[in-house]
C-alpha cells in the first residue's frame, strides 16, 4: 500500500512538472494583465522545437534552447497583438494555438518524413534521470529509503528546476521592484503609467518570462518525459495549467499545489483503470479525468471559495494623450 502511494506520488511529480511550468508562465502573463489562452500552443511549439533541435544536434540542451526561442517568439506575437495592437487576448491565443497545431505537423513531416513526428531521441538528446547520492544504498531503509530513492531521486533536471522556480517566482513577484510593477500593471495600469513607467514594456517582459517557462514545459514533454515529438502531444496541458492558475488564485505556491493536485488526479486515473473500489464498483477513468475541469468550473462559479482575477486582465491599455 505504502509503495503504491509512493509510486503514485512519484508519477504525480512527473505529470505535474509541465503543469507547474506552464501555470507559472500563465501567472506572469495574467498578473501583468494579459490573458494567455495560448499556453497550449506555446507548449506544443516548444515541444516540437526541442525535439527537432535535439534530433538534429544530438543535445537536449540545444533542444531546450530552441524550445525557449520558439516559445518566446510565440509569446511576443501574442504580446504584439494584445499590447501593441490592442487585440482581443482570447482571439489571439486561439490563433496561436491553431497556427502551432498545424505548423508543427507541417514542418515535422517535411523535415523528418515520419508523419509529423520527430525521430526517437536517445542518449544525450534526452534529459535523463539524476540519481541522488546513496539513493541505491538507502533504498532498503524502511519508509525513508523509499521516499528518498523512489520519490525524490531519479527525476530529470527539469523536474527539480520546475520546483525550484516556484520560490523564485514568489521572490520575483512579491519582493522585487519588477514584481511590484508587474502586479500593479495587472491591477491598475493607469497608476503605473502615471508613475512614468511604461505599461507596454512591463507587459512585454512578462510575456518573455511566460515564453521561457512555456519553453521549459514543452522541452520537458518531448525531450524528458517522452523521447520525441508526437502530433498534439500537449494534449490540453496548457488548458489544465490555466485551470490550475485559476484554482491557485494567481499566487505561485497555491498554483503549484493546484498543479500537484491535478497531476495527482491524473496519476490516480491511470492506476484506477479497471480497479474495483469497495462499495462503488469500478470508477470510470473519465470521471477522474474531468475533475480538474469540474473543480475549476465550480471554483469560478464561487461554489468553493472565490477566484478573483487581476483587475485589468484582458483589457487593452490605451495611453491617454493630449
Amino acid at each position, binding site marked *: 500500500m505504502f509503495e503504491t502511494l509512493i509510486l503514485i506520488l512519484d508519477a504525480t511529480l512527473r505529470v505535474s512538472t509541465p503543469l507547474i511550468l506552464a501555470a507559472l508562465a500563465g501567472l506572469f502573463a495574467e498578473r501583468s494583465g494579459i490573458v494567455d489562452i495560448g499556453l497550449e500552443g506555446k507548449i506544443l511549439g516548444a515541444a516540437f522545437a526541442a525535439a527537432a533541435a535535439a534530433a538534429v544536434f544530438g543535445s537536449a540542451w540545444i533542444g531546450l534552447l530552441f524550445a525557449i526561442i520558439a516559445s518566446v517568439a510565440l509569446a511576443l506575437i501574442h504580446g504584439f497583438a494584445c499590447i501593441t495592437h490592442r*487585440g482581443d487576448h482570447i482571439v489571439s491565443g486561439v490563433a496561436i494555438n491553431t497556427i502551432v*497545431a498545424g505548423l508543427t505537423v507541417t514542418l515535422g513531416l517535411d523535415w523528418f518524413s515520419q508523419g509529423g513526428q520527430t525521430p526517437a531521441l536517445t542518449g544525450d538528446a534526452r534529459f535523463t534521470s539524476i540519481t541522488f547520492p546513496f539513493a541505491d544504498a538507502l533504498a532498503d531503509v524502511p519508509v525513508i529509503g523509499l521516499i528518498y530513492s523512489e520519490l525524490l531521486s531519479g527525476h530529470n533536471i527539469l523536474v527539480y528546476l520546475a520546483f525550484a522556480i516556484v520560490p523564485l517566482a514568489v521572490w520575483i513577484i512579491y519582493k522585487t521592484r519588477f514584481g511590484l510593477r508587474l502586479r500593479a500593471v495587472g491591477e491598475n495600469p493607469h497608476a503605473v503609467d502615471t508613475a512614468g513607467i511604461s505599461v507596454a514594456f512591463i507587459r512585454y517582459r512578462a510575456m518573455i518570462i511566460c515564453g521561457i517557462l512555456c519553453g521549459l514545459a514543452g522541452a520537458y514533454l518531448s525531450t524528458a518525459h517522452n523521447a520525441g515529438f508526437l502530433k498534439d502531444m500537449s494534449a490540453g496541458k496548457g488548458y489544465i495549467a490555466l485551470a490550475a492558475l485559476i484554482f491557485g488564485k494567481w499566487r505561485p505556491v497555491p498554483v503549484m499545489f493546484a498543479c500537484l493536485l491535478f497531476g495527482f488526479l491524473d496519476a490516480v486515473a491511470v492506476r484506477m483503470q479497471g480497479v474495483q473500489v469497495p462499495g462503488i464498483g469500478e470508477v470510470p477513468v473519465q470521471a477522474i479525468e474531468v475533475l480538474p475541469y469540474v473543480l475549476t468550473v465550480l471554483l469560478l462559479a464561487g461554489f468553493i471559495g472565490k477566484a478573483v482575477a487581476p483587475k485589468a486582465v484582458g483589457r487593452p491599455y490605451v495611453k491617454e494623450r493630449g
Partner: protein
Amino acid sequence: MSQPKVPVWVNLALIPFINIMLAFLVSALVILAIGENPIEAAGYLVYGAFGYEEGIGYTLYYATNLIFTGLAVSIAFKAGIFNIGGEGQAYIGGLGVGLACLAFDQTMPFYVIVPLAIIGGAAFGAAWAYIPAYLSARRGSHVVITTIMFNFIASSLMVYLMVNWLKQEGRMSPNSRTFEESAWLPYMHEMLAAIGINIEQSPLNASFLWALICCVLIWGLIWHTRWGYQLRTVGTNATAAIYAGIDNGKVTIWVMLISGALAGFVGLNEIMGVQHSLLLNFTAGFGFAGIAVSLMGRNHPVGIILAAILFGALYQGGSELAFEIPSITPEIVVVIQGLVILFSGALEHMCKDRVEAFFTRTSAA
C-alpha cells in the same frame, strides 16, 4: 463633431480581403520554406475545391459544419460574449441527434425523425451551453474559461458514454449501431436526381439547406426583432443596455442557448447525414474553426456563408493538395485558419486603423 465617413465597401470587403491576403502570404512563405511552389500548391487547392462536381460537393459539405459553428460563434459575439465552447456543444448536440435517431429509427418514418433529430441536436447543444451561460450570468464566472472547461468535460463524457453504453455489442471500435435508412438525411445527389438533375456523389446532404435556413432565421432574429435589438445593445454597450432596462444576464443566457443549439446542428450533417451512426471525435475541430469563420464573415450571415465556403474549400482543397504534393500535409489548412484568426481577429486594428485613416484623410482633403 462629425467624423469623416469611411466608405462602406472598405469595411465590408477591402479589410477582410487584406487580412486574408496577409494570411495567404504567410502560408505561402511556409510552403516556400518546405521547398514547394506556393502558386502550384494554390492551383491544386483551387482545383480540388472547385474543379469538379465531387470536389464542390465536399467543399459545401465542410462548409455546412462551418456555417453552423460560425453562426454559433457570431451570434454570441454580437452580444459581446465569446463562446469558445462550440466544439463541446457540437459534440453533445451530435449526441442528441444520434440518440433521437437510435430511439426512433426502427419505429418512425423519416419525416417524423427529422424534426425530432433537429430538436435533439438543438436541445442537447443548448443544454451544454446553458450551464456556462447560467454561471456567467448569475454567478459571475468567466464564460470563456467555463466553456473551455466544458469542451474537455464533453469530450470525456462522450468517451464514457460511447465505450460503456452506446457501443455496438461485439465490436472493438466505440461506434453505435448503424441507423436504419429512415434516419438518414438524403444526399444532395439523391435529391437532385429525384428532380432529374444528375451530379456526382458526395457527402453533401440536406443539412446544407437547413444551414442556409438557419442563416436566414438568425439574420431575421438579430436585425428584425425586439430580441435582436436587445442582443445588439448588450453587445455594443452593456452599461447602456442596463439603463435601457435590458436584463443583461437574461440576454446572455438565451443568446448562449441559441449559440449552443446552432453548434449542435453539426451533428445533423455528420451523424445523420454522413456517418449514420454515433462515434467519437466527429466534430474534428469544426467548433474552433467557427471562430475563424465568424471573424472572417464579420458576424453577418452572408459573410458567414462566404467565409464557410472559403474554409470548406480550404479543407477540401487541402486534402487534394496533400494528395498531389506528399510533402505537404492537410494540416497546412489549420495553419491558414490560425493565420486568418490572427490577422482578422487579434490584429484587426493593425490594418483597419491604417486603411481607415487613409480613407478619412483622402475624403477630408
